[in-house]
């Protein structure tokens, strides 16, 4: 198991954002995490990546316990992440944005730059190398973020709503890109998303969360039929079928 979360609880004061989540991400797979707003998806991401310290429970990466590690240490051992919303570094050029990620594994600027160029090629943002992120469309900014995360040379890539704000064509493009880099780099992907179409197309395994709990897990087509899942998304009425 590449990533293993055991009974993870995160409380903010009296609010329980994650109430005992357990899940496993298998190496080389694409795992999707879905759930309605406020289900605790981002909280779980933050607990794994070292942004929150879990109240209880454990996180393992490649068999090593990483519970409560600071974010920069988590990044160094091979877990990269992107954030919700636009988080490209605004005062650095596209090339520098990717390069700064590459510095995670090397001190040498030439090596960092070469790696950045390779990744920009892969994500087809090479031509925008000297532009500032704010001058570019959202779809390209998402690629910059993806590039920065990839440049750290991760084993596990956690993407928090990477397709938010993209139109259907751009969404299709990012799905293709993600599948391609996954194959080329031998990555494992762990992603959250609101857009059902996106997550159902790309994921091999899906975990469904609602109100801080895991309510279902399995292949996309199975999860979609699960009564609890429909209930969580559409309300009780629809789970039992329309009554009138």
């Amino acid at each position: 198991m590449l990533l293993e979360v055991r009974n993870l609880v995160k409380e903010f004061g009296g609010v329980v954002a994650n109430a005992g989540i357990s899940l496993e991400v298998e190496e080389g797979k694409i795992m999707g995490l879905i759930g309605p707003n406020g289900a605790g998806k981002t909280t779980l991401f933050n607990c794994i990546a070292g942004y929150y310290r879990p109240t209880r429970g454990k996180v393992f990466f490649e068999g090593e316990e990483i519970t409560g590690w600071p974010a920069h240490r988590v990044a160094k051992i091979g877990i990269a992440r992107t954030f919700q919303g636009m988080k490209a570094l605004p005062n650095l050029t596209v090339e520098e944005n990717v390069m700064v990620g590459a510095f995670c594994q090397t001190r040498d600027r030439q090596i960092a730059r070469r790696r950045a160029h390779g990744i920009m090629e892969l994500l087809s943002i090479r031509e925008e190398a000297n532009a500032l992120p704010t001058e570019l469309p959202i779809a390209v900014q998402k690629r910059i973020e993806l590039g920065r995360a990839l440049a750290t040379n991760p084993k596990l890539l956690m993407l928090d709503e990477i397709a938010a704000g993209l139109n259907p064509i751009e969404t299709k493009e990012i799905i293709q890109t993600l599948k391609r880099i996954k194959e080329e780099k031998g990555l494992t992907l762990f992603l959250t998303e609101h857009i059902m179409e996106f997550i159902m197309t790309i994921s091999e395994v899906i975990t469904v969360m609602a109100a801080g709990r895991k309510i279902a897990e399995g292949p996309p087509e199975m999860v979609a039929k699960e009564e609890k899942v429909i209930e969580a998304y559409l309300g009780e009425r629809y789970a039992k079928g329309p009554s009138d």
Partner: protein
Amino acid sequence: MRQLLIDIFSFEDRPRFERIGFLIFIIIVLLFPWIVKSAYGRAVMIKFLLFALFGLGWNLIGGYGGQVDLGQAKNVGFGAYATGLMMLWWGVPFWITVPIGMVIAAAESFGVAYPMFRLKGHYFAIATLCVALVWKELFVFWDWTGGARGVEIPIRPTPNFTYMQFGSPVHYHYFIFFLFLIQLLFMNWFRKSKLGYECQAVRDNEDVAASIGINVYRTKVIAYTITGGLGAMGGSFMTVYYLYIDPDFVMPLDLSILIAMTVMVGGAGSMWGPIIGAALLIPLDMYLGAWLGAQKRLGIDFMIYAAIMMVIAAREPKGVWGIIERMRRKRIG
């Protein structure tokens, strides 16, 4: 090793107009003592170079690191007093006192950075300001530092390179230019280094910085420590240039703020911003002050000064360099 030298001396990655501008600047500074013969003009130039040097160092934490430090004067003071006291007590040569002053300032900065970077934004700025004020009061209070009377450097009868005392301002001009170039080349290395990029990532977004393996806290502490050391170098120069130092002269709040202001006006976080800022503010300050003072209109120069800074701060937060950059990007399209 070869790569290190290239990183220090090469401006190849900068656009052509910047390199040409820099070359013209170097030539003007080199020829300056032959063009301008007036003592006041030369003094203005020396002060400009001194503040450009201060700005370069402050730019590391304030510009690249994005942490508003309003206490750089304490480091200037450490450098000035290290040089002054060691010369006075034991006759230590200038060039030995400089690294010692820098190490003292860096060590102090490292020590206070530890608790201070628990704070963020405005609270950090206030903390830096307080620490600097405490040091100034201590230097006034203590006897061994000469207290409020300060330190007077014994004047050597003949110009000499051991104590860096010269009869003519021309020597001091090249002397400060040399120190300025050292810091400029250091910053040229820094902006391309891993540390330089880490600082910028921390400035732009701390969460993102952590997500790519940057220890945010450690990066800030290192940047603040280096900035401390760089500030001390200018302080050492002040001691041998003015031959007299006291806490009100080398470590006041005004100095901290002026250093921060020159960089912000010129363009924080850019290579040339500190130089442009000092080139605007220092001559303005000295000529305007002298001219209005002669007409018995004291204080008006401060108003004009403040007005200029407000306009720049309101119109372009990235300073004069930000305006130049924007124009250039527009032209390229």
